[in-house]
């Protein structure tokens, strides 16, 4: 019998590597870089579950990120409740938002570009609402009062916070790896490849898509809460901004659509490159994003499996050859 833990080895390896970072890194710049990158990668895990495994490309994952961040901020500031339950509430609200948007969009049969556009529109509606509503602080945003302490999810040193981010990242990596091997994962990938064929094999396409978008919303919302706890400030253009919708999609695609490690690899690669570009060109506003956009075009054109796919192909050229077609006929 094959060891059932073997598929988790890459996740564990990456987890150990990431766990060492807060212990070894001392520079605040490096710690900050890693914390922000991992928060984005976590949000991208959520996107990848729905977009990479399920083939439903969302252009509005900011909706979930923002709902997570704002729910927790409201929970703490308007209800005076604690940050840890705020993390749970934010995550749960992300799931609920996912289920609601998913129910509306998937039941209406929206797919492909239409689904992408409708998610974008939802994110924009949330942005406008958060920007003009009183409970969210309007255009001024929400500033969490400074209350350092583990109980409030606020840490005086970046390394401790990074440790929390790493822990959640590894937890979600493990979860996604588990999903990949599960019945739900198989059905999700099947409907990505061909919905009709999946239905014929007994896959309840609507139910599976809903499960995926609910989980996806929850994961991305968790990242939103972490963002809030890290910067202690959000406003509508940050929490529901297109930047996060674009970055999560980029990280997942550049890293490798529908792979477990893709979002983390992609986020690290993109943000690393962004820093390099900034170092080379100076602080020209937007120049790193311009490079991201170009990379998206290049990735779609030349890197269908993303960086993870590239690494796999280089690592196992023999397996690929084994899979050549049997006869000469196509």
């Amino acid at each position, binding site marked *: 019998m094959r060891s059932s833990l073997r598929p988790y080895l890459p996740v564990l390896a990456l987890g150990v590597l990431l766990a060492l970072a807060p212990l070894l890194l001392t520079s605040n710049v490096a710690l900050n870089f890693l914390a922000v990158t991992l928060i984005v990668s976590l949000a991208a895990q959520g996107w990848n579950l729905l977009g990479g495994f399920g083939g439903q*490309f969302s252009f509005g994952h900011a909706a979930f990120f923002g709902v997570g961040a704002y729910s927790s901020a409201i929970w703490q500031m308007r209800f005076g409740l604690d940050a840890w339950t705020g993390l749970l509430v934010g995550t749960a609200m992300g799931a609920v938002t996912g289920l609601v948007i998913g129910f509306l969009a998937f039941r209406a049969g929206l797919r492909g570009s239409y689904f992408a556009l409708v998610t974008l529109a939802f994110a924009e509606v949330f942005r*406008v609402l958060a*920007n003009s509503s009183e409970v969210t602080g309007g255009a001024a945003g929400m500033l969490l009062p400074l209350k350092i302490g583990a109980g409030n999810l606020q840490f005086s040193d970046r390394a401790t916070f990074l440790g929390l981010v790493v822990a959640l990242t590894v937890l979600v990596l493990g979860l996604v790896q588990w999903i990949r091997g599960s019945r739900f994962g198989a059905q999700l990938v099947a409907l990505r490849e061909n919905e009709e064929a999946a239905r014929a094999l007994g896959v309840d396409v609507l139910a599976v898509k809903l499960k995926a978008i609910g989980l996806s919303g929850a994961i991305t919302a968790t990242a939103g809460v972490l963002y809030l706890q890290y910067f202690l400030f959000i406003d509508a253009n940050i929490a529901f901004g297109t930047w996060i919708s674009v970055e999560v999609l980029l990280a997942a695609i550049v890293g490798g659509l529908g792979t477990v490690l893709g979002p983390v690899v992609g986020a690290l690669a993109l943000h690393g490159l962004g820093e390099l570009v900034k170092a080379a060109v100076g602080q020209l*506003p937007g120049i790193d*994003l*311009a490079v991201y956009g170009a990379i*998206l*075009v290049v990735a*779609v*054109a030349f890197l269908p499996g993303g960086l993870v796919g590239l690494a796999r192909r280089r690592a196992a050229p023999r397996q690929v050859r084994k899979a050549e077609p049997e006869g000469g006929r196509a």
Partner: protein
Amino acid sequence: MYSADIIIEALINGLLTGAIYALVALGLTLVYGVLHIINFAHGALLAAAMFAVLLTNQVVGLDPYVQIPFLMVIFFALGYGLQRLVIGPASHGRDENILLVTLGLSIVIENLLLAGFGSDTRSLNTDYSFAVFEVGPYLLGQARVFGAGGALATAALLWLFLSRSDTGKAIRAVAKEKIGASLQGIDVAHVYAVTFGLGCACLAVAACLLLPTFYVNPKIGSAYVLVAFTIVVLGGMGSIVGAMLGGLIIGAVESMSGLFLGESLGQIGIFVIFILTLLLKPTGLFGAKA
């Protein structure tokens, strides 16, 4: 509550703006109708065109309306090149890929504009920017009236071009039956690029018509792209008449919801229409059967 005059005036101004929106949407729906792709970079290209108008005005001193023929040609060439050299080859003919490639392009354009011009919001002032026509009790911005007239004229010209010229006929043939058209010796890749070029030329005209009254900043494209998508979806993807009517409706809705809900919350009206149309009637009001 507002008096009837104020409401009617806002409605007319909304319809005038809507005509220019319709021109923006026309480019989008044309590309969709022929290539069956959603060009997400449409808004960013519009922003680029608006900055081009602004820059030319500042450097050469050319009036925005005088710039129309030049910018049209330049943007046609730009669109032709983009489709032929970037979008076509990079997306391997898959829908999701096209959406991603054009998203990538929009990010590149938007942020290059940001790097080049900074994030400031700019506007271009002409003699007629703040002038008004008095029509009975109503005050109508001159630039809006000119803009709407220009947009309708452009749409009419495009209509003539598509129905009368040989290229227009080839475009319609490809839109209807791609394989059949290619069997008759029509160069589909060329027709695609021409169509994309026409879509961009519409943007160039729209930019010239918008600038005398509307401000511009590098991020403005994302606002216009959603408005344009809403119009296109409402009017029916690929329908030219639908885009024109949809544009007018959206212009009116925007103006009305702005009047009643205020500037910032007013945008919601458009998004809500967008979402409801997609959820309830994705073929739009005038769309061909899916």
